[in-house]
């Protein structure tokens, strides 16, 4: 009855049973051995040498650091993790061990996986110490829900005094959520300004002076000319933010409300009731119809026009030296034409928004077991020139050579956070890279200090009371996203959008915005009509 095949099948399956049992055992023991979720274990993972523990600092500025600590830090990456990251981490830990009796367990999470992973981590209250928490990745709503550790004003003075001095009080205030501090801001180009970036080589060829372009009406004839003489070049990049830049309006992030910037009034007005807004949308749609914006803009957003040199002009957020950055980045792209060069002109006045200082901020988790030590590390991170450049550029002689006191030349193929320096703490501490102006940091400082605060600085629309309506609105109006890119006819679609919005509960949102705004004004001792 029992044939050969059955016998071998039988032994195969007994073997499988064995595999099953051993694998379960392996998994369980593997899971217990690894300190997966221990954010702050008692033993440092990277002690630099023997005997170092005896000479480790016991206190700094009167704060006791006798207990060695490991801090788990989650940082964002936008592509692959730089080569040799392990070696740099070891060097970092050697330094932090020496200075603060602390080691850092640094982990990277990809930007594309960020929301999924971080949401799960936060909701399951995973233990970790620090995390990259910028405003554009749910910083405020997470803070409101209790994900982060509150940095009290006293703690700020005690553990982060130098960092505190890096920013003005107004800026610290803008980072508050419901009156509390939850993040250590990132120090870089904090002010926001918008302007044009264009292909200088093409402009020179045809004698076009882009610095004279101040409005979108101004650029229209130029785009027409480019389309005529350079048919392979897209005249202008499709853009979601032609209304940004505070030329007429402030971005409020509260329904469709906005503030006009050409008067002192604090009265909220509806964006599309304003003639300039409507005109802008029509103008932009006109660009699309006339072929200045590429025909397949709606579907082809994945192909990057700037880095491949396929566009003439683009309206974008600028800072001093952005064009140099763009050039440096694009040079690495094989499709970028050899003689192509970008130039920029900032058109708007620089201004400071609520999110200005939260572009690269770091927060401490409320599940951290060592928030004080985390703060001390952040203080070092934000103010120590050696540590900052170690993280950004690696080890001298190995990853870069020093050309002068503050300038370096990176070594090809070695560790470098090129292009991502803005995300790491205090960019002002960075050495200068090839192609950057000598006075880059002075320019940044001037840029930042010349900025005026927006009228609505300090106002956050608390979405919680109307979150149902907002969710419905987002889903219902996503259909019209293309209109914001200038790809749909506003005359046709704006009425449709308004109808949809009303059906999704826009009225309730409007009421709530007005109510919160009135409260905000009252708290500042102002009324809608100055």
């Amino acid at each position: 009855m029992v044939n050969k095949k059955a016998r071998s099948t039988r032994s195969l399956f007994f073997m499988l049973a064995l595999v099953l049992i051993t694998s379960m055992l392996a998994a369980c023991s593997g899971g217990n051995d690894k300190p997966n979720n221990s954010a702050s274990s008692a033993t440092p993972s990277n002690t630099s040498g023997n005997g170092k523990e005896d000479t480790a600092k016991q206190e700094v500025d009167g704060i006791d650091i006798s207990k060695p600590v490991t801090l788990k830090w989650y940082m964002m990456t936008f592509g692959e993790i730089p080569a040799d990251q392990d070696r740099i981490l070891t060097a970092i830990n050697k330094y932090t061990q020496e200075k603060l009796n602390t080691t850092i367990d640094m982990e990277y999470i990809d930007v594309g996986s960020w929301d999924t992973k971080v949401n799960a981590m936060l909701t399951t209250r995973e233990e970790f110490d620090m995390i990259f928490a910028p405003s554009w990745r749910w910083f405020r709503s997470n803070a409101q829900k209790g994900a982060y550790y509150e940095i009290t004003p006293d703690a700020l003075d005690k553990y982060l005094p130098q960092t505190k001095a890096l920013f003005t009080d107004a800026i610290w205030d803008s980072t508050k959520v419901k009156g509390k501090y939850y993040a250590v801001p990132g120090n870089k180009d904090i002010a926001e300004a918008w302007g044009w970036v264009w292909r200088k080589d093409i402009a020179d060829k045809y004698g076009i002076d882009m610095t004279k372009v101040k409005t979108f009406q101004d650029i229209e004839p130029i785009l027409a000319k480019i389309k005529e003489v350079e048919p392979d070049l897209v005249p202008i990049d499709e853009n979601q933010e032609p209304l940004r830049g505070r030329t007429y309006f402030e971005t409020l992030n509260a329904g469709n409300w906005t503030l006009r910037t050409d008067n002192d009034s604090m009265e909220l007005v509806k964006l599309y009731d304003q003639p300039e807004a409507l005109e802008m949308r029509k103008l932009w749609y006109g660009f699309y119809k006339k072929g200045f914006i590429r025909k397949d803009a709606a579907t082809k957003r994945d192909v990057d026009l700037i880095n491949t040199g396929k566009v003439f002009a683009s309206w974008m957020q600028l800072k001093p030296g952005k064009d140099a950055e763009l050039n440096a980045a694009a040079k690495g792209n094989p499709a970028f034409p050899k003689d192509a060069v970008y130039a920029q002109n900032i058109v708007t006045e620089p201004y400071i928004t609520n999110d200005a200082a939260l572009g690269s901020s770091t927060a401490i988790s409320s599940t951290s077991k060592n928030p004080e030590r985390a703060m001390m590390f952040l203080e070092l991170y934000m103010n120590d020139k050696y540590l900052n450049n170690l993280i950004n550029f690696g080890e001298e002689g190995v990853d870069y050579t020093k050309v002068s006191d503050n300038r370096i030349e990176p070594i090809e193929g070695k560790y470098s956070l090129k292009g991502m320096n803005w995300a790491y703490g205090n960019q002002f501490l960075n050495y200068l890279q090839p192609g950057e102006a000598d006075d880059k940091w002075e320019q940044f400082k001037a840029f930042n200090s010349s900025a005026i605060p927006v009228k609505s600085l300090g106002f956050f629309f608390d979405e919680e009371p109307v979150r149902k309506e907002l969710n419905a609105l987002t889903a219902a109006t996503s259909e019209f996203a293309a209109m914001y890119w200038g790809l749909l006819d506003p005359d046709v679609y704006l009425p449709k959008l308004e109808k949809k919005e009303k059906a999704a509960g826009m009225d309730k949102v409007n009421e709530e915005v007005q109510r919160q705004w009135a409260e905000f004004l009252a708290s500042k001792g102002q009324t809608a009509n100055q």
Partner: protein
Amino acid sequence: MSKATGEMVANGLIQGTKAESKQRKKGFFFEMRRHGALYSMFIPGAIFLLIFAYLPMVGLVIPFKYITYSNSFWSTLFDSEWVGFYNFEFFWDSPDLYRIMRNTIGYNVINIVLGLVIAVSVAIALNEIRNRKSAKTYQTIMFMPYFLSWVIVGYLAYAFLSPNGFINMGILKPFGIEEISFYTDPKYWPFILIFFAHWKGTGYGVIIYLAAIAGQDQSLYEAAAIDGASRGQQIRKIMIPLLKPMMIILTILAVGGIFSSDFGLFYNVPLNQGVLKETTDVINTYVYNALMSSGDISLSAAVGLFQSVLGFFMVVGVNWIAGKIDPESKLF
């Protein structure tokens, strides 16, 4: 009755008389003693389910809460504010509710029916062709699309459907037909989406039916051939009826998901173009877009629960119907 027969009755292998079946109803311990070994086979799977499926079911409260973070996950769950059906309302009160329900259910019904017909037909075709090498090759190739992610399929679709794509440039233009702007016209998309759903998924279903056919008793066919039946008759009268249990169970299982959709297909292939939403927006994409504004997990949890509950009722209904056709094939 003989001892052997008696045993067989007790084992349920053959029906005994009423008196004998009364003896079987002795209850739990009797059953355990009789079939302990068999019940023990459930253990590994049951443990898995308890850990990975039942334990997480504490999360079933999430749709009804507004999640704020406390010290531990448990306190987060319990301390968070109870909001009843609030999280469902953005969905129920949505002006697009009719559209997304219609699209979701519509596509699913069509795909279930079409999927059944295509998979069975192709499986039979593959089984019948004489050259086994060809069959093997065809089968392998038909399975290939299954490996491409929907993101890539989205790019491929674009290559065919874009204004400069193969269809416009390669087929319509040479024949002087006016170009079709696929990505701005909703009316073509039901066909496009259904096409891709089956293009990617048919290989999968075919394998199941091929296995089922392979397991059929060949002597039945030989007997029928001797009786003078043509192959076509053999297929219609033997093969397909024998495939009924498999067809029924797969349909019942598919029906459970009638309120869900393959997110990857509906999000990536239309390249998230808003103007196409009339025919491409389904429940899953709708919720995904809503999440863009808040990152609130309770929302997707709420809609997911809604989809599951409705799907459950559908399955109970279809299972009952299936019982009328072929009691052996009922799910439960």
